[in-house]
């Protein structure tokens, strides 16, 4: 494995003992609860954001955090990374960043007289891409190949990335000057987009209190190993999806394509993402089967950033989220009883 454990901190022994392989279901719940608790100590008043981030991690997707500066996007990504005993790299995207700065380069070794591959920051379990829209399209697309393929190809040689692998990218939707906004095809690679939003007054006051002396991020310790996460990923993959739920998912996708106020609807890949995210959401709720509610609850996060509104809807002040809600209000929930 070409993975650098550059931020590794040893797990405590008693936590390992608690992770009894015989009762993984209970373990899943315990570990996920710990991760969420840890995230919530850092990100005040945004439990849904942390939960969604964990959902995307467990669904093996990538997360796009889109919001104005200073609301804790990077903090969320960092906190999630720190709760897991795994490798985390952060890339600050700038216009002069080159693809090789992300993926790594082959360097001629004088001693061995051959080219050696030096992995870039993308070789980590969690990669935080700050302000991804500031990089050139070329650099963006090199990261996106890694996201989709879970591998890096340099000088004709392919290097696999480790598991779990998650890119958490942030971008600022306001400050557009000198940026390269992600094209639709690349936005489609992100499983979900979260807008953090401002915290409410109480949470903001609490934040001022806790962040005054020492960053709470420093106090976060890993509560799950990469192996734990890999086991959880397996469990999520095994979550049962009833045919009726698949039908419901497909119906939602079709509704976006037929919606009169959308120029671009949901892609088949996005439905795959939707169902995977729903499975992770069901597992986080302690279920081994997906409900239509799981699909509905995550639809906005998974679908909204991929939809393109037509000009009239955009000028009328509608948002992709409001259209997703409109679709959810209209697509009938399929039931097994109707199928049989």
């Amino acid at each position: 494995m070409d993975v650098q454990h550059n931020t590794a901190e040893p797990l405590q022994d008693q936590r390992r003992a608690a992770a009894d392989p015989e009762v993984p279901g209970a373990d899943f719940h315990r570990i996920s609860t710990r991760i969420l608790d840890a995230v919530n100590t850092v990100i005040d008043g945004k439990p849904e954001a942390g939960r969604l981030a964990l959902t995307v991690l467990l669904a093996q997707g990538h997360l796009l955090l889109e919001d104005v500066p200073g609301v804790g996007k990077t903090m969320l990504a960092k906190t999630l990374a720190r709760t897991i005993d795994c490798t985390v790299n952060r890339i600050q995207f700038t216009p002069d960043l080159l693809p090789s700065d992300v993926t790594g380069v082959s360097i001629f070794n004088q001693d061995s007289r051959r080219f050696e591959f030096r992995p870039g920051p993308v070789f980590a379990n969690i990669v935080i891409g700050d302000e991804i829209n500031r990089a050139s399209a070329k650099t963006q697309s090199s990261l996106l190949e890694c996201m989709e393929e879970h591998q890096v190809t340099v000088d004709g040689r392919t290097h696999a990335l480790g598991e779990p692998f998650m890119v958490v990218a942030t971008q600022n939707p306001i400050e557009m000057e000198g940026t390269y906004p992600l094209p639709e095809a690349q936005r489609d690679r992100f499983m979900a987009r979260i807008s953090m939003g401002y915290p409410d007054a109480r949470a903001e006051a609490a934040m001022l209190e806790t962040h005054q002396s020492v960053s709470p991020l420093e106090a976060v310790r890993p509560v799950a190993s990469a192996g734990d996460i890999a086991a959880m990923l397996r469990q999520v993959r095994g979550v049962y999806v009833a045919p009726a739920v698949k039908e419901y998912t497909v119906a939602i996708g079709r509704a976006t394509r037929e919606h009169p106020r959308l120029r671009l609807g949901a892609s088949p890949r996005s439905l795959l993402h939707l169902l995977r995210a729903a499975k992770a959401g069901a597992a986080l709720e302690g279920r081994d089967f997906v409900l239509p509610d799981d699909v509905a609850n995550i639809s906005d996060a998974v679908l909204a950033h991929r939809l393109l509104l037509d000009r009239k809807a955009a000028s009328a002040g509608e948002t992709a989220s409001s259209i997703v809600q409109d679709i959810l209000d209209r697509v009938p929930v399929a039931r097994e009883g109707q199928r049989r």
Partner: protein
Amino acid sequence: MTSTLSRPAPPPAAPPAAPVRAPVEPWPWAVTGAVLFAVLAAATSLNGVGGPWTWLGPGLGTVFPVLLAMAAARSLRAGGVATASVGVLALVGMLTAQFLGSSSFLGVVPGPGTVPEIQRLLAEAEETVVSSVVPVLPGDGIMLVICAALGLIAIVVDLFATTLAMPAAGGAGLLGILVAPAIVKPDGVGLSAFVATALGYLLVLALAQWRENRRASGGARASSGFAGRGVIIGAAALSATLILPLMIPGFTSGAFPQGSRLNVWGNATGLNPAVTLGNDLRNPTGFGRITYSTSSDSPLYLRAVTLEDFSGRRWEPDQRLGDREPDVAEMGTEQGVGGDVPGTEVFTRVSTQSYASPWLLSPYAPEGVTGLSGSWEWDPLNLSVLATDGGPTPRQDYLVRSREPERTREGLGRTSPAGPDAVSAVFLSRPEDPPEIIRTTAEDVAGRYRNPYDKALAIQNHLRGPDFVYSEQAPVDGGYDGTGLDVMAEFLEVRSGYCVHYAGTMAVMARAAGIPSRVAVGYTPGSPTGNTREGPGGLELTEFVVDSRNAHAWPELYFEGVGWVRFEPTPSRGVVPEYAQQTFTPSAQQRDDLDSLDPGNAIPGAPGEQTPAAEPSPSAEATPPSGEQSGSRALPGVLTAAGLVLVALIPPPLRSARPGSRRRAPETAGGGPGGRGSATTAWAETTEIAGDSGAPLQAPDPPRTFEHRLARQAGLAEAQAGSMARLRAAYEYEEYAEHTPAMQGPGGGSGSTAALARPALRARWDDVDAVRSALRSSSSWPVRFRARFLPRSLVNRFPTDSR
């Protein structure tokens, strides 16, 4: 027994399996028994078609052996085709034994003489059908048809119920039994027969369903089932039958007076015009317009046919096809009437237009008819003219030369009783055992007179007396419409009817008094059009028009030396001949003066004649405030109220029956593979209750969304919200979780999927009840009222079972 055996013995319902032969299943026999009951129940609707219960013996004798044979064949593991064949064979055998015994081998096997015998019986049945108004006499022919139909329907229903396992479809067969009575009986099928049929049908459904449940292993399937659907269908049908007549004005009167009763024999007068005459009269829109222009200066009755055959205990035209004479241009005189009858020659030109009948209309007594198209024959016995092929012949324009006999009161008064050979015996024949009332009435009315003319007058005037009320509807409502002897007896009892009853009764009573008689069917004079036509020799003919509203029947009595004389016993209809007008009592005189208006005066009010109440008839006025009329005014109101009450009462039991059947569904959350367990049923019940309370489950509602909305809307307390959450969770588990044979129930299973915890899931009806009472108490009274009497869930059902 040893002391270690503390467990009670297993119930006998679960015997150790696997004897050499499978135990005999009682259910097919029970279903067949239910089929027998249902068919016989439906057959009770035949009670008004023939005499009461006359069908029972032959019907039971046919249906029971047929079903017994089929059930026996089935118990011997015969296949479906073999079972059906056994049923058909049994049916043929039983029909042969009952109706064709003389021409069969061994009593049950049809022999060579069977076919002509069947043809004879079928011809008899056909004649009964064509010439009679129900109730018909239960002759062999009609009984054969009834029994064959019952047997075939029993076979079909039994095959549907058992062999094909489609018991609900068997209802069509039962419906088939009801169709004939619904068409021919004046009051339709009747409530009792309908209810009996419905009960029989439900019994079949219920037993078939229980049989299916028995067969299904462990009875794991929750199903509202055949019986539930049957109840709903039945209730809907009952509601429709109750509501339809109430909602559609004129359903029982007016333009569609027969309601659901179809006139399958059409408007053509057919072989027995009396059968449809009543229908013609009750039709307020006159049809079959006929014009005639005549040289006569007195009103003309147009006569089509006479009914003189009373051998079948009812008035029928005599089918003497062989005795007819071909030359209608020069007709001879009638039998029993002298060659030179004094009278005036009358020319009448008749245009039948759309009127279609095999019988030719002519004034009495025709001497020759010219200008006819087609081939015609006349009957020397009654001077009726009939198309040779018997088919209807519209658009005739012909000239009738007739002689209007001169009748005087004095001449008639001199007649003596007719000798036995004066006329054909057919005019005197009558049943040997006439109903008592006919005999006694004839005796009371005419017994004291010796002269036949006086007797006839007495009978006529009795019928025109104040006790009798003209009504076209009363016989239909009272079920005594027709020309049968029983009808006459009933008419004398009820004293309300129309011309067919008056004429038929007078003819019967005349025969009882020894006067030869027949019933003529035709038209009253009609109304003048104001036009004239030119007749032969430049004669000016006055034109009249008649239509179906002028249809009429009147008696003709024979007097020795005089011939056939028309009487008019029907009050408020037609014209009483001068010689028949009454001079005995002042009241009768008054009546007759009013009745004997000339056609020009009488007919302008012709449309009004349909309603006796509108007619200035003293006989109608003299009638004490008729219960029928006041009753008929109150009746729609009473019926409406009763109907509304019944309709209002239907939904609650239906609604409350459903949870009952659902609760009986096996309490196995998750059921088997693919099985729908109690959780779905409980959830279905919950959503329907919520819908009834005004918070329906919308199609795009995922269960949790619905739960939260309901909790918000109804302000559910914590306990009830907990109930709701339990119901929802159990439903979700049952609906969307994986159910493989390896994963029997919560927490079980294998592989990584089972690693996640499963909630303990068991739907509880306590929770449903808790939610129901919470919703009830939180909703307003109109919502509660609607939930009880017009629940939305009657139509918007949660589809728990897609079978």
